């Protein structure tokens, strides 16, 4: 057992120091009925090469995104991650450190989190950001709870353009509450959320680009919400869009939540991902999750610590603002390294490249008989209506080696309006050849 340092002799010596006759004596508090009264139907320990062979066999049964043309998005996006990012996050001192509870010997993590918070605040146009949450969906649920604490009002209105899984997570978090209004999905892009806002409304939640790829007018939403004393929560599932779109903070958003996976983090079949959250200065003390702050040490040197933890569960217990205990530190590190490698110039170029490829994709799709592109506006993702049930079309394309996008019916089962809709994304990794292959295959399938 290569990970366990003791020899049998050392174990015996240690038991001698303890004064215990055998190891079972150390489990004397365990009721006899429960101690090792079973045989586990599990294999014994295994050499590294056999474990590796087993895992490779499992991995080999999956079609990786890099294996062929790939257009899947809807909340997770395939972007290039520079080799430097993955190398750096695997350095022992980042990878195998714990939460920075001892700031004097955790300045690396703490300074990185301070830089991360600054980056997130800048791209969202907000005053402050926290040191990351689990992901965009749980961040959205936390933002809704936060808005209720701030406004002391209960009603929450979710736009129909919010990712259906995000909507489900909010529903689970607010299960007992009747005051949750979920508008129906609106694939055509017209929203009726603004006239639903009233004086009881704590917040409206608007995603942009929305689930179908349409861009939303945040300024109008902020004005309508603020006129009724409600907050605007902006949700972003594709954070690269902020390189090209106006920052939500500049348009009046009160809380911005985003999925940060696109920068620095692989697809990973859905996790681990990275929840970004940013808000206005006056709401800091209602913001969940960790915060890193600047201070000085006993010599007057600049240093960093976790701060404002009086909101947290380990101090406030049942009065805590959330039950969150950890964050996505390593994913935040990957984000921060990738973002610093991009810098402003690179981030803007990356966003432009995504948009340019999406325009090519939209134009190519629009030229196919039997395909209607629903979007007038988009960033790197769009929705098309085809002449057949979308799930079957996508499955047939997958058999041809093309992962064509997400049938909307997978996320909204039973909704006849979306049965023929496919949501497709392009990124900087999408090539002209990929688009040509998709166009040719789709043309044949729809013929």
């Amino acid at each position, binding site marked *: 057992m290569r990970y366990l340092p003791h020899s049998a002799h050392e174990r015996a010596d240690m038991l001698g120091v303890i004064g215990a006759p055998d190891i079972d004596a150390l489990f004397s508090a365990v009721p006899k009925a429960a101690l090792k009264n079973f045989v586990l139907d599990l294999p014994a320990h295994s050499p590294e090469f056999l*474990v590796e062979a087993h895992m490779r066999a499992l991995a080999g049964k999956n079609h990786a995104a890099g*294996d062929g043309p790939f257009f899947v998005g809807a909340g997770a996006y395939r972007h290039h991650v520079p080799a430097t990012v993955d190398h750096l996050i695997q350095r022992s001192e980042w990878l195998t450190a714990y939460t920075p509870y001892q700031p004097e010997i955790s*300045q690396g993590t703490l300074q990185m989190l301070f830089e991360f918070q600054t980056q997130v605040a800048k791209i969202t146009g907000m005053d402050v950001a926290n040191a990351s949450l689990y992901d965009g969906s749980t961040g959205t649920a936390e933002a809704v709870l936060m808005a209720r604490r701030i406004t002391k009002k209960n009603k929450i209105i979710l736009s129909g353009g919010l990712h259906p899984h995000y909507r489900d997570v909010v529903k689970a978090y607010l299960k007992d509450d009747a005051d949750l209004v979920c508008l129906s999905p609106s694939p055509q892009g017209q929203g009726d959320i603004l006239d639903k806002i009233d004086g009881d409304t704590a917040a409206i939640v608007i995603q942009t680009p929305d689930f179908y790829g349409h861009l939303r007018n945040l300024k109008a939403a902020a004005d309508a919400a603020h006129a009724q004393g409600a907050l605007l929560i902006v949700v972003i599932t594709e954070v690269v869009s902020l390189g090209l779109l106006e920052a939500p903070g500049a348009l009046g958003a009160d809380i911005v939540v985003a999925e940060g996976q696109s920068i620095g983090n692989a697809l990973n079949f859905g996790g681990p991902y990275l929840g970004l959250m940013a808000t206005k200065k006056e709401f800091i003390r209602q913001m969940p999750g960790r915060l890193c702050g*600047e201070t000085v040490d006993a010599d007057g040197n600049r240093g960093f610590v976790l701060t404002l933890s009086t909101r947290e569960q380990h101090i406030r217990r049942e009065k805590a603002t959330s039950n969150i205990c950890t964050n996505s530190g390593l994913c935040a590190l990957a984000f921060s390294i990738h973002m610093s490698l991009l810098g402003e110039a690179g981030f803007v170029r990356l966003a432009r490249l995504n948009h340019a490829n999406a325009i090519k994709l939209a134009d190519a799709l629009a030229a196919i008989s039997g395909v209607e592109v629903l979007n007038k506006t988009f960033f790197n993702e769009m929705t098309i209506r085809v002449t057949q049930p979308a799930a079957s079309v996508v499955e047939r394309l997958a058999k041809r080696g093309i992962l064509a996008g997400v049938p909307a019916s997978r996320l909204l089962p039973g909704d006849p309006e979306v049965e023929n809709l496919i949501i497709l994304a392009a990124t900087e990794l999408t090539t002209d050849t990929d688009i040509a292959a998709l166009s040719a295959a789709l043309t044949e399938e729809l013929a």
Partner: protein
Amino acid sequence: MSMNTQGRPTGIGTGGSTNASGSALIPDEPLLFEIGDTEHSGVDLPEVELSNDRLGGFGRQTKLDLAGLTEPEAMRHYVRLSRMNHSIDSGMYPLGSCTMKHNPRLNEKMARLPGFSDIHPLQPVSTVQGALELMNELSYWLMTLTNTAAVALSPKAGAHGELLGMMAIKAAQEARGQSHRRIVLVPESAHGTNPATAAFLGYSVKPVPAKDDGTVDVEAVKAALSPEVAAIMLTNPNTCGLFEPQVIEIAKAIHDAGAFFYCDGANFNAIMGVVRPGDLGIDAMHINLHKTFSTPHGGGGPGAGPVVLSEALAPFAPVPFVRKAENGLELVEHVESQALGRVTAFHGQMGMYVRALTYMLSHGADGLAQAAQDAVLNANYVKARLEHLFSVPFPDYPTMHEALFDDSFLKDTGVTTLDFAKALIDEGFHPMTMYFPLVVHGAMLIEPTESESKQTLDKFCDVMAELAQDAKSGNSARFTAAPVKAPRRRLDETRAARQPILKWERPEELPQAAE
């Protein structure tokens, strides 16, 4: 050193003229905003024309003001920062209740196979059969090790799993027509997440006192039970490092009263392969994959918190889950009249599943049991070596995976638990967990885990003993000044909280103030 507004130092280090105030080979590092600029980039991307954009007039008008670094600059920045961190690969990390064990690199290598890392949660299920097999296999290991009926893999962290487990209990109580049960019993020694979770779900939290020996008394549980109680949330082994000897009786009392038994599984490392929680009568328990099965903590996450469920709760598992179908495995993402729904956007922490299963296969059932036993052996060894110098609040039982001391041995020395911990930094060790559990005054909770060799444990115990003797001999200055050898001296946390500075601003943008 020059100061700008709010008394913020703009120079780095006391020397002011160099960046090398830390020590010879561990230099200080400026903020990336101080070394980068908006024109620098470490990524080569083509510039494209957007003559006919489809942004509908929502394009960015304001500047991002985002600093960039070239690749060599970034490499050096993050390598230099990393060297200001303690980590499990550089030294012992005896944080009680946090389980900092060795992180095998095979786990990392496997998690990076493109067949795991480069697959999308929403690509056709027919193209990810290997991923579903992996989830199925991991589920089998977790259910077998715990002797439970079902598992929900999706929670993103231990506390998230706890939330889901309590949601399942709430849904089950509602399905039984028992929604009037509004109380959750939580022992005083519980993790802070336990009462926070119960309160989050609208329950009122009723504390259960511990006995003088640090364990929960079945009679106290019985006395707290009523028809309004929905569940108990018990940590076992508990946060004092003790196995609850009456856990089976407690489970029976809970079930007889129509309530459920939630077990906080944060300390599963002490009993994996040795005790199956299902045999103790638990109904739900989250498993911190990142602790017990060695997915790296990464400076504070990501975690993963699957929840195992008893027969009674299995029907209330959330989506998504994996199920056998005609052609292989299927992923159930929607269930009609689903009680619980969904707690995260996709299928949970796949990257962590790969690491955890790799670790399980490497150890096997025999190795996991040996690891648990070694963790317990190590904790008891530390306790045995130090108990004559330190004070042990609960001496009646052998400890499990962590050794708990209190600060009564420091009485009248002028040295606090915090001072003691900071002195340990100067000796090259990460401090133990302090001031937790709350039931003990000045608690010091030490969890060596199974990863530490006898040699390391001896060195650690020698240092601890030397420090204890030094404190008792009146040398308080060594402690109150500590740390002196770390990248930073004691940091002013009060100032950070009173005048929060949570992001970098250009010095010229800061409001002017007198120096």
